[in-house]
């Protein structure tokens, strides 16, 4: 088996993930691109575990397992934040989110008062 094949696949997947994170505007698509990058890292870990002889066996597999768990936690919290963003601003385009709320008038929000949007959904 030639270890260079999975390594190159992982590098290409990582590059595609970086491209997706930088180019996509929708926050959910951004999270998908992050998943691609995490998978590329996992692939490197598994390949290294299968091909490099070390004194402590299966470390790469254990780390990949941990990264999968971390990715599940990350996507849970990330989607909660995305849904809250949608609830407040009626949009999940990441380049329309103001970086500071110092002057909310020039940020052209879809709903000018976030408090009302939250309150009217509360039963």
């Amino acid at each position, binding site marked *: *088996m*030639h*270890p*260079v*094949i*999975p*390594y*190159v*696949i992982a*590098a*290409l*997947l990582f*590059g*595609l*993930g*970086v*491209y*997706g994170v*930088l*180019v*996509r*505007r*929708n926050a*959910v698509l951004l*999270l*998908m691109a992050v*998943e*691609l990058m995490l*998978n590329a890292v996992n*692939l490197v870990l*598994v390949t290294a575990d*299968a*091909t490099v002889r070390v004194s*402590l*066996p299966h*470390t790469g*597999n*254990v780390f990949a*397992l*941990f990264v*999968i*768990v*971390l*990715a*599940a936690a*990350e*996507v*849970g*919290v990330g989607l*909660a934040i*995305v*849904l*809250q963003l*949608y*609830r407040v601003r009626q949009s999940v*385009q990441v380049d329309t989110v103001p970086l500071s709320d110092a002057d909310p008038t020039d940020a052209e929000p879809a709903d000018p008062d976030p*408090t009302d949007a*939250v*309150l009217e959904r*509360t039963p």
Partner: protein
Amino acid sequence: MTSAMTVADALMIGLGAVAVGAAMAVVTTRQIVRAGLWLVVALGAVAGLYLALAAELLAWVQVLIYVGAVVVLLLFAVMLTRAPIGISDDLDRPRAVGLLVGGGSGLGLAALLVDAYRWSTVDPAPAGAEALGTAVFRTWVLPFEVLSVLLLAALVGAIVVSRPDIGARTAGEEGS
């Protein structure tokens, strides 16, 4: 050292082509739901790569957690944010910077790894469930426990972030 291609090599090249092609579709498609479905193909192909690398347990964990749970969560988020079903043209920002950085990092890393490994041959060491369980619960048991605390924190955090009444009360206190 033989340089001939084995069946595992051919399998990995095929699965890698599927994974990279599907990943390319994920980051370039103009329909949001299709991006999620292409993500299933890409993650499934990566699970197949794990199988070809003799890491069975990880392959099935990948199918269960990524393809089963994470993609379903992402599709739920697509639905809950009322994403447009058809073709939408405003999904991408200008692509020049993304192409430069993404292509540069991907191809640069690929060139680095090709230069490091050339066409060397290795027999993959199989990592069965028993050996992996021994490694997790002997050597890495403390990080495993810390990870369970992290999962609990993420669960509580997700609930707190997504509960509307908590956010409303804080906003009301700030306003008064």
